[in-house]
Every structure is written in C-alpha cells, then in structure tokens.
C-alpha cells in the first residue's frame, strides 16, 4: 500500500518535473546572455558593418556591396587570399601525414615511445609569440641555428625570411613544428580504438605488415583522417601570428595572409567596414572548405 502510493507520488513528481517551466531557463540564461551579446550580435553587426563605410566608433553611410567590390579590385587582398591557400597547401598535408606517421610509429607502451609522444606534443603548449621568437632566430642569417648548420658544410645559409621564394616555406616549417602534436594525438586516439582481435586474426593469416597497415589500420582510421584535415584547414586558414611576427607579411606581401590583411584594414588603417567585409569573405571561405572536404569524404565513404 505505502509502496504503491510512494511509486505514484514519484511518478507524479517526475511528470511535474518534466513539464516546461520558464524558471528552468534561468540556468541557461547567464551563458545565453554572453552568447547573444558577444557572438550572435557581433556576427550580424559585422555583416551590417561590411555594407557600410565605418570607422572605429560608428558605422557611416551605407555603401551596399561597395566594400566587397573594393576588396575584389584590391590586388593586395587577392594576393593575401592566394597566400593563404598556398600556406594551407604547404601545412595541412604535411601535418596530416607527419602526424599519421608519428602516431603509427609511436603507438606502443615502450618508455621511448611515451617520452617521444610527450616531446612531439610539447611545442603545442607554447604561445605563438614564443614559437616565432625561437624560429626567427633559427632562420636569421649569420647568427641563426641554420646558419651554423650550413657552416658545418662550408655553405652559406640563405636568408630564409627575406627571400620571397623561401619566406612562406619558413613560416610553414615553424607552423608544422608548433602544431604537429594535435594531429598525432588524434591519430593515436583513433589507433587505440581499433579492436586488437582484428590484428590477431591478421597475424594468424600471416598477413604482412604492409598488408595489415593498408587493409586494417588505415581504413579503420579514415574518419579520423578526414577530421584531422578539416580541423587543420580551419585552423591554418586563420594564419596570423606567425606571419605577423616573423615577416610582417613581407617581403613584398608574399607572406601576407587574409587575417593579417583584416588586421591591417580594420585595426591599423581603421577602415572598419572594409575589414569587416574581408572577415566575411574569410568566414565564407572557411565554411566552404570545411563543407567541401566533408562532402567529399562522405561520397568517398559511400562508394567504398
């Protein structure tokens, strides 16, 4: 008797608890306040600004697509778009493949593997300022570490950061050194997920190592590979600190990425409307790149 009334009370209470109640929204309200004011509102305000001639405090006259037209007639902006694609092309495949190689070779419990995993991830915790400080000095002619290495072979090191054909490559090397930890760790996590009995079955079948790698390991982590590539594309599209601190976008704008151009327009020349337009273009590019990559991987997955 008491048991049954207990149960019904519980049910009534549970039902009452599940009914919508505006007071429950109080828990999400504090976050939503910041979300609305600092993310949603600026997102739309930025779109609004991109159609206006704006400065640091105000949005001036409406100019329609004027800012966008100016951008696409601006050789420096177009160049920065090209530079950004070039940088993504230099870094993303290298990060994905090197990360995969390191994960495959360090996926063991040995002491050496543990230490090396820690080493390859360690640079990721440093800030961009310290990373660029280190690498600017590695690349600097005469005094740099590379100059010292070249001297061992009686050669003269080129001045990496001021040579137009080498500057972006130098920034890419710095970036790979800085960012290699994350792809490696993501691949390692994926490798741990592969059930051990598949490998045991392969070993019983006397499958070669190469065969095991190509028909078990790599297909099992395909999704992670796509994930790593998307994450890296989104991250590397936003190159700013390395280029700003190592070369200021030079020589002759060859290392000037889109974000540096936005920074220059909006916060140094205070042409805020034009800067906002450039940031919308970047946003669209990132979304498009991630979307294309995702769709390509999905259709490839359906075929296999």
């Amino acid at each position, binding site marked *: 008797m008491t048991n049954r009334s207990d149960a019904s009370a*519980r049910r009534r*209470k549970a039902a009452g*608890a*599940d009914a*919508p109640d*505006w*007071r*429950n*929204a109080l*828990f*999400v309200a*504090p976050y*939503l306040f*910041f979300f609305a004011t*600092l*993310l*949603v509102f*600026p*997102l739309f305000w*930025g779109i*609004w600004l991109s159609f206006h001639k704006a400065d640091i*405090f105000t949005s001036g006259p409406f100019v329609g697509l004027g800012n966008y037209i100016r951008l696409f007639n601006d050789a420096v902006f177009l160049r920065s778009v090209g530079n950004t694609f070039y940088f993504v092309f230099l870094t993303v495949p290298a990060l994905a493949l090197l990360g995969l*190689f*390191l994960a495959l*070779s*360090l996926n063991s419990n040995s002491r050496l593997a543990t230490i090396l995993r820690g*080493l390859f991830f*360690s640079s990721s*915790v*440093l*800030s961009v*300022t*310290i990373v660029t*400080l*280190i690498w600017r*000095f*590695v690349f*600097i002619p*005469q005094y740099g570490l590379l*100059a010292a290495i070249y*001297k061992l072979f009686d050669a003269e090191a080129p001045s990496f950061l001021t040579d137009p054909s080498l500057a972006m490559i130098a920034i890419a090397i710095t970036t790979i*050194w800085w960012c290699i930890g994350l792809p490696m*760790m993501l691949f390692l*996590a994926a490798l741990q997920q592969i059930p051990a009995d598949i490998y045991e079955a392969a070993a019983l079948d006397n499958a*070669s190592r190469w065969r095991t790698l190509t028909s078990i390991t790599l297909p099992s982590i395909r999704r992670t590979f796509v*994930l790593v590539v998307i*994450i890296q594309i*989104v991250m590397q599209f*936003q190159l*700013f*600190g390395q280029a700003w601190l190592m070369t200021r976008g030079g020589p002759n704008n060859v290392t000037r990425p889109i974000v540096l151009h*936005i920074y220059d327009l*909006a*916060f140094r020349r205070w042409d805020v409307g034009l800067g*906002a337009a450039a*940031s*919308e273009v*970047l*946003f669209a590019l990132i*979304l498009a790149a991630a979307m294309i990559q995702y769709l390509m991987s999905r259709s490839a997955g359906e075929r296999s």
Partner: protein
Amino acid sequence: MSGRANSRSARRGIGDHLILALVLALSIAMIAPALWVIGLSLKDNHELMANPNSVFHPPYVIDNYVNILYGGGVIRWILNSLIVSVGLTFGTLLLSSLAGYGFARLNFRGRDILFIVVLFGLAVPEQAVIVARHQIFSLLKFHNTYHGIILPGLSNAFGVFLMTQYFRAIPKELDEAALIDNASRFKIFWKVLLPLTLPAQATLGIFTFLLSWNDYFWPLISATEKSMYTLTVGMASMQVNFAQSEGVGFLMAQAVFAGAPIFIVYLFFQKYIVTAVSGAAMK
C-alpha cells in the same frame, strides 16, 4: 619455411630501424631549436655578439635571468596573463556547468532550438566577429581592462557543449531521488550532480586556461597599453626591435622565462592536457 620466416623478421628489422631513425631525426628537429634558445639565454650578450657560435661551449652564465627581475615588463605581463586566464577559466566553468545542466536536464520552452543555435556558434571563427566586437568594446570603453580581455572568451560554446554531453551521461535516477526529497533544482545541481562532473571540469578548465594563456589576436587589439599587455602580446612587442636593443641572450632568457610556467604545467599534467586538447578538437 623457417627460411621464409627468418627473412621476414630480418626485413621487419630493417624497416623498424629505418622508422626509428626517421622518428629520432624528427625528434632532434623538435628539440634542437629549444635547446639552442636555452643555450643562448645562458650566454653573455657581448660574447654572443662577437662570436655567435660561442653558444656551443661554456662559459654559461645566469645574468640574463637575473636581469629579468630588474628590468622589462615580463613579470607584470605574467601577472596580467594569470588574472585573465584564471578569470576566464572560472567564468567558463560556471557558465558552462549551469547551462549544461539546464540543457541536459531541465525542460523549458525553446530549449532544443536554443541548443542547436548554440551548436552553430561552434562553427563561427573568431575572425568573423572580431571587427564588430572591437567596435562594441570601443563604445563601451572596455579596451585596456581585464574584463575587456576576458569577456569575449565567455561566449565560447565549446564548454556548454561539453558539459551538456557530460550531464546527459549521468543517470537520471540520481536527480529523481533528490527531487523526492524536495530538494530545489539548484540544490540538486550544486550538491548532487556538480561533484560528479569533476573530470569534465578539469578537462574544460585546463583547455580554457591554455587557450586563454596563449591567445594573441584579441589581446593584441584590445590591450594596447603596455601595462595591460598579456604575456603573449608583451613578448611580441619586444621582438620588434629585436637583437639590437638589449641583446640576444637577454631576449632569449625572457622567452624561456615566459615559456617556462606553461611548460612546467605541461610536464605535470601532460595526460590531462593531451586529453583536454584532443577531446576539444573532436567535438
């Protein structure tokens, strides 16, 4: 039969050695620049000027580190970075826990739509909002203040997403039992569920701290007064007139000094940091 097995294991041996050699070469490339910078930081500035290769042999001195304590803004900047990072970390933990509980457990009108909108927020890169944000903060006179540097980070949707997932994974029987005891919603959240989310709090806390400590773009445009620089911005400002000013050794000592705190944290909490960062990336 045995011959074939032998040749296979021999081939395996060569392959293993090649891979090991390549991995070791890469690890030298990882570690050499850092060791070299530490070496530079331990050299007398005049000796380095005269002969840059003197870094490879003694004498090594700690004068550059002593000089940090007397000159430069590094200590002030470390303090600023600490205030900003700790503030943002606690703010994020509080807001994300409350919202995560609300989205995972409570019913109110529009909850599911709101949650989807928040998830869309994850896809918005900082650059898409930063110009407008800067203008808004100019109007509010928030630049060159601690809250001005902290506030934008509070809108990050990742913490809410993580905490919502975590609260959903906790068995519902726990809060139903507490409801029978007539505990208030807030009490259930605070006393019953929150202690169970400590692992997620640690992950989110470490991730937020690291991101905030290393943030560069927003502090660069918001904290323009030298006394309000965070460590990343301050270190960057010194690179501009690099080498000719106070000497290479001193500059590198400051870099090592600035990098050391986060590196020591990494050595102690390596496992948690790796979990936090890779977990965040996989969202």
